[in-house]
């Protein structure tokens, strides 16, 4: 299979690789780049474990090909952890035990960050709706909603 050269900015680092056209972004991240924080749960766009950010939008890493990301900026859980962007969300998840096995957590955190990104304080129903694309089998979701709500309130308070 002919390989295609792509260049992308992954977590702030410019990466040039030759990839198979059929390779999904999440496989590319995990297998080519060793960024195993993005997880594979269903490979058909339902579970949300592979959520990553491409040019600022949270998308399913299993529903986009690596070659489509040529020229794009991709942020994964490793990147937003190292930058400190979601440190408050991570701390809230840990404090509230908003994760058990932790497999959904990277995707859940990126979804949560997308919700809170604009500085709003969503109500619990809105939070539940927003994370409805991220499957968690362990927690029953309440702790996750609590943690996201707490961060939304804290960020709003900090701005006042």
């Amino acid at each position: 299979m002919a390989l295609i050269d792509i260049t992308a900015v992954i977590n702030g680092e410019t990466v040039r690789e030759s990839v198979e056209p059929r390779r999904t972004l999440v496989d590319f991240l995990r297998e080519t780049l060793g960024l195993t924080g993005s997880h594979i749960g269903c490979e058909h766009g339902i579970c949300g474990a592979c959520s990553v950010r491409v040019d600022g939008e949270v998308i399913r890493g299993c529903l986009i090909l690596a070659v489509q990301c040529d020229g794009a900026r991709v942020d994964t859980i490793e990147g937003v952890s190292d930058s400190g962007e979601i440190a408050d969300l991570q701390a809230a998840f840990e404090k509230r035990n908003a994760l058990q096995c932790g497999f959904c957590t990277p995707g859940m955190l990126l979804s949560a960050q997308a919700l809170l990104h604009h500085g709003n304080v969503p109500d619990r129903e809105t939070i539940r709706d927003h994370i409805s694309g991220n499957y968690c089998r362990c927690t029953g979701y309440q702790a996750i909603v609590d943690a996201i709500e707490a961060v939304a309130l804290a960020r709003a308070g900090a701005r006042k």
Partner: protein
Amino acid sequence: MKIADDNPPALTVLDRPNSYIGRSVPRPNLARLTQGRAQFVSDVTLPRMAHVAFARSPHAHARIKAIDVAAAKAAPGVIAVVTGAELSKVITPWVGVLTHLKGIKSAPQHAIAVDRACWQGEAVCAVVARSRAEAEDACEKLAVDYTPLIAVTDAETALDPATLVIHPELGDNLTFERAHTAGDPDQGFAAADVVVETTFVFGRHTGVTNEPRAIVADWNPGEQRLTVYHGTQAPHMMMNLFAKHLGLEEHQVRVVTKDVGGSFGIKVHTYADEMAVVALSKLLKRPVKFVADRFESFVTDIHARDHRVKAKIGVKNDGTITAWEIDDLTGIGPYSVYPRTSGIEANQIVNLTGGPYTCPNYRARARVVFQNKNVMCQYRAVGHPIATAVTEGLVELAAARIGMDPLEIRRRNLIADDAYPASGPSGIKFEKLSHHESLAHLDAMMNYAGLRAEQARLRERKIYRGIGFASFIEVTNPSAAFYGVGGARISAQDGATVRLDATGAVFCHSGVTEQGQGAEAVMAQCVASAFGVPIERVRVITGDTDNTPYGGGTWASRAAGIGGEAAWQAGKALRGNVLAVAGSILQAKPETLDIRKGIVVNADTGAERLSLDELARIAYFRPDTLPAGVQAELMATRHYVPRAWPFAFTNGIQASWLEVDIRTGAVTLLKHWCIEDCGTIINPQLVDEQIRGGVVQGIGGALFEHCLYDTGGQMLNANMADYLVPMAAEMPDIEVGHVVTPTADSELGAKGAGEAGTAGAPGAVMNAINDALRPLGAIPLTDMPFTPEKILRALGKV
């Protein structure tokens, strides 16, 4: 016994200074999970690692006439193509039976099907290649010549003489049968004013762990050792089974289990494809990796439930329950799963039905039959959701018939809190339960009277809300009675080794495992409290058969109660050892000393005498300064297994508050409550989150989850778009409260909490739906999952 709130005070009966028992300390291993720095088995790569993909039978039952492998072998990247017959020379087949399930039978199961496939999804050939993609490409080039056979799919007719016998050598399709009669059920029913009889149906569902099953097997011929990175709940059990079926000694096998992306009982069984992976590694002398994709998960991860229970209750007009009767039928696929068998769920239903109540008159029959569908086995709360929904469904149907409040009928029949020790109708033994106190706590917590008034007001506006309850019992802390007595090499005991390092920190090596429940936090709490160090000074090591005491792992709600007690005792033993050394350094009697916050102190005054750092320095680097004959033993191991009771039963009660849209049949869950009694609460937050997660898993089975099969044995919804799991938007907030009745079988007094939520939720939701629809004259719904279509049918609208 006392009622505890959700955040009990720091000190409990385990009255050590600076105790962590009863405190919601955070889990020590969370940051790596939130930062994407965990190591799940699906993340593992090794030098020379190959990947396997399996060709799987598209037929529910078929003879394999021939497999043409030539094109696959020639495909790019392919290392080997291996059939079932070839692999059977490397790994022996197994039979999933236990001697204490009298009469249970099954047929030998191979790692890869030999000659015949018995369910849609059974692996028929393996392709090993440099990448998973290349292995899958080559699978497409296999030409498997099948002769389809009749598929036995309906459990109801599996035992008919006209039905094909799946394993002719077994004589019939009956895997296991148990009958039990206690008291005098005939007289009980004769004495009843009302007899309610119905049939409960529980749909087949499955665990849908977020990380699919994953395994990397690495046979090193140079070391003659097999290292298996395995997402499992029971590393020592798997070590034994890999060794046994590969013809190795146990010490030649090491099972390493780091992060596991969900388990729930799915990852505690022997899977044929995983056995194939270890055999392929042995055959090819290099690491081989397999991660199930989601479609494979749906047709090969064990399924569960799928029971049809004809059930009957007798009740007097004063509410007294006079008799129970159940007849359970379940189809478990073509093989009883190894090594725990597929007879346990039915057996548990016989054990648990009627369990919270005093009525002793009970007749039960359970039959387990073979069929050509994916295998079924033990999944979170094994049998409990079924026994609880049957029992509690009968109780509420009976209450409605005699016009009695559903809590009142329970008050009149639940075993009294001062009547222990007591037995259930099946003969199961209860050390001490708290049904009435739990009920009273729930009544107050949910403002039952207020909710009833609200319900009545809303009904006038044609808004139909329902309240449903489920009292429950849960099997936890199993002794050897569960598996060991049946001949399975599954450890009932567990161990902990605690070691003081040279700077005064503590390592705890535990035989239980962590799949997110928080077992490592509980071990750290127990050790830190018993030994006397800040919890940050405790490092917990689990999931490595080379480096942990032999143990059972984490399943059946055993990690905290059994593993925690071992850790507690090991911490105490190390404290004794350390104080002996401290005594000789300080010229003091060890019993006058204690360890608090990592410092040796005078036990009476708390005055600081010696830091652990300094003690360890002397013991490790200047032992020459210790008196002659004093040898510091800075490592201690203790084991624990429950002996006084076969199981530590817990109890509780749940309530569901929901609304049914009678135009669409949709159910909206508004609130859920659970009061449970798991004895001593080591970590309130972790207990509550186990309850919440468990409740939601139970709700999944009640409302959404269903492995749909056609009559030919094809699973129709083997993907996450069509198999519905609970997502955040549909789930309610869940309020949790506790009653605390410690078990006297251990010093900690902790029972398990992992399955209580799943045990009670389906019954509570079912009862709430029926409560909502009762004024409309709907036929009571007893067929899970309760889809909108079924609800509209019950209302006569479709």
